């Protein structure tokens, strides 16, 4: 009985502390909402969507935060309910890899194609030409143009 009083006292002290720490601000909500898109609108981030439905979803985020859910858990819940269209990059592992790595792969392949093209069209090796270039007093077009400008001839 004595212990029960102590526990009750501790709980009474602890609850307000939790409430204070657990205050969810609009900024907390928006930080998560900004990582998601309105599930029914046209590519509008959830934090800046002005519809009544979006207000409700933001309120849901607030409630979830109050209940102690983490950011990832909230995002997962929205993805579970509305699909991967609510996030900027899919949560589904396969779709995520497809989304992020296909363009990188294509870009790397393009780079290889450019290198192949450049080597094929280089004639003599670039390194040799670099050495030759050291000794050639080249005057490229723009420098020649400046010289002409200075001399006042066209």
């Amino acid at each position, binding site marked *: 009985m004595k212990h029960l009083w102590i526990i009750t006292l501790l709980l009474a002290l602890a609850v307000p502390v939790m409430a204070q720490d657990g205050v969810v601000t609009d*900024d907390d909500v928006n930080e998560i909402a900004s990582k998601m898109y309105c599930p029914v609108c046209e590519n509008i981030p959830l934090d800046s969507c002005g519809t009544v439905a979006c207000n409700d979803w933001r309120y849901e985020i607030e409630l979830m935060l109050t209940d102690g859910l983490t950011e990832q858990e909230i995002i997962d819940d929205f993805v579970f309910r509305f699909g991967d269209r609510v996030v*900027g990059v899919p949560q589904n592992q396969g779709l995520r890899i497809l989304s992020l790595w296909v*363009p990188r792969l294509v870009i790397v392949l393009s780079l290889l194609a450019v290198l192949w093209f450049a080597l094929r069209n280089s004639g003599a090796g670039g390194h040799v030409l670099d050495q030759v270039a050291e000794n050639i007093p080249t005057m490229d077009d723009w420098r020649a143009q400046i010289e002409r400008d200075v001399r006042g001839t066209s």
Partner: protein
Amino acid sequence: MLAEIGFVATILAFAASLYAVAASLLGARSRRTQFVLSGRNAAYLTAVMLTVACLTLLVALIVEDYTIAYVWSVSNPNTQLFYRVTALWGSQAGSLLFWSFLMSAFSAIAIALNWREQRRLMPYVIAYSMAVLAFFLGLSLFIENPFERFWVLGGEVVEAALQPAASFAPDYARLADSAQGLNPLLRHFGMAIHPPMLYLGFVGFVIPFAFAMAALASGDLSNNWIKATRRWTLVAWLFLSLGLLLGGRWAYDVLGWGGYWGWDPVENAAFLPWLIGTAFLHSVMIQEKRGMLKAWNMFLVIGTFSAVIFGTFATRSGLVESVHSFARSGIGFPMFLFWFILTLISVSLILWRRSQGALRDDHGFGSVFSRESLFVVNNFVFVALFIAIFWGSFGAPILAELVFDTNITLGVDYFMRVTPPLFALMYILMGIAPLSAWGVSSYRRLGKSLLIPVALTLVTVLLFHLGGMTGVLALFAYGIVSLAGWVAIYEAYRAVRARMKTRRESPLLALSKVTRRNPRRYGGYLIHLGVTIIGIGVIGSTLFQMETQRTLAVGESASIANYELRYDRFDGGQVSADGRILDIANLSVIRDERVLATLRPRRDFFPQQAEGLNSMSIAGAHSTLENDFYVLLVEFSPQTQVATFKIYINPLVNLVWWGGLILIAGTILAIYPVELLATSRVRELSFGNSAASATA
């Protein structure tokens, strides 16, 4: 009557464009000049007829002819005159007609200007440009006709261009009462200029495309087509850049999310041709100077136009969901088919000519550090950006839907992971490439040229650091962006200094003379400087943006950074001249106990808007070069007058607009014809001579 005039004018333009294609091709095949001449005249006629059609629709909007379905859908008796005019491109049917009008005008001017010098290319230029025009006019006539009228047929209201049998016109007063009004998002000054600029940019690329195709078809694969289209490409690029900038500004002012670029698919659709067009503008110099990359340039110019058509298709077909896109309509499939056929024909023509050896380069690559090699890397960067943005906007979402039967959105998260390294590489190249030489160049020579700009960049980074910036990423980003700017300034400075030394001219005079002698080069440097300033603005407003949301009662304040925002008063339920209901919050921005500005963020409600968006949040902003203090009214309670505000501090955001203006100025300078400058120089000289003789 207005509907009939417009409809007939559009039909005549359509017929004339088809005739122009047939006559010019026949003339080219049979080598009979009169056919080509006739085709040219038909092309001119399309411009005249489409001017009539556009003017007719404009008059219908101004005189409030609600019997025309288009007028009814984009205006109502409360619409101000200004927005009646902009309503011409406010919806699908009108904007398609306006697009065709611009295309016909561009084509007519290009044909007239190049008629004498490019006689061999002309028949094909006419054929290709008019074929594209005919397609768009076909859409206007058969799918999205802006001249359709309302008719009552058997108790039902139907829309038709020609009066159906046994029908009668509905009561005008009832039509006026129920008229829709312009989409609220379009009731902004930026909307008066943004779409026409984008359309001018889009249709402007028809000209280089038509010339490239003409070169491929005629076999004249010399640099003629490039000389004829260089300025047109720049003009199209100028308008596209202007359209993108204005679009960003419009989003910043109207869309109410504190930013200017949301990686929205439709924004991206306009950015894609810009990227390929920019690659082409650089790459074409290699062909002019060194006779290289002939096939690649063909691919780029055709790719640019193909991106324009694809973007148009994506925006107008409902393919992607976007705040910008037009409603779903029947033009999707024809546009996709047109895009596909156009691209297929173009690529086939290139491959055919290439297989004949007609697109063989005159030179090989000299060295890794030559200007042409660096320009190729530059092209790679732009194409890589194109791939990344295309994939994020269209590729992945479409593939996910088709293959995995699921909808996905690739948003800011995706774009901020994939594109920054490419943009960084772009800025690095902007800093290095202008210093390298054509043909052969070495890293030592290049390194020597870079010494001073790099030193200036390091000083800049140090200043940023001393100013309180500690993030390595931010300092690196500012470093590479500054390098590009310093190189542009340093190159101009060297030329000016050389002239000042030898001619003893003042700095301003020397700058003016140097610029006038080579506007293309110095216009280019100015563009680089503009892009540098945009970069500084983008980095500042992206990496250092601050935001908070606060709910305040009247008289309460909120703090953010070293600013204080005080909520002074609420003016609710005000009715504007066009029927909007405005709820306005009056706020004071305070810093160091001094009121810097009063802001009036507001919510506009459109009670007559039956469907779609019926409210908008218009920001209040206090703008300085340092930052924008930007406030949105999120919600409020009329009873308690308690209001919620979203407050942003967007550092350096105004540099985006200033940089944009510099970019535009640089492009105009680069476009400015050297011949005109030469003429003015001759005039100056002759005036000088006559003045001298008068003095004598």
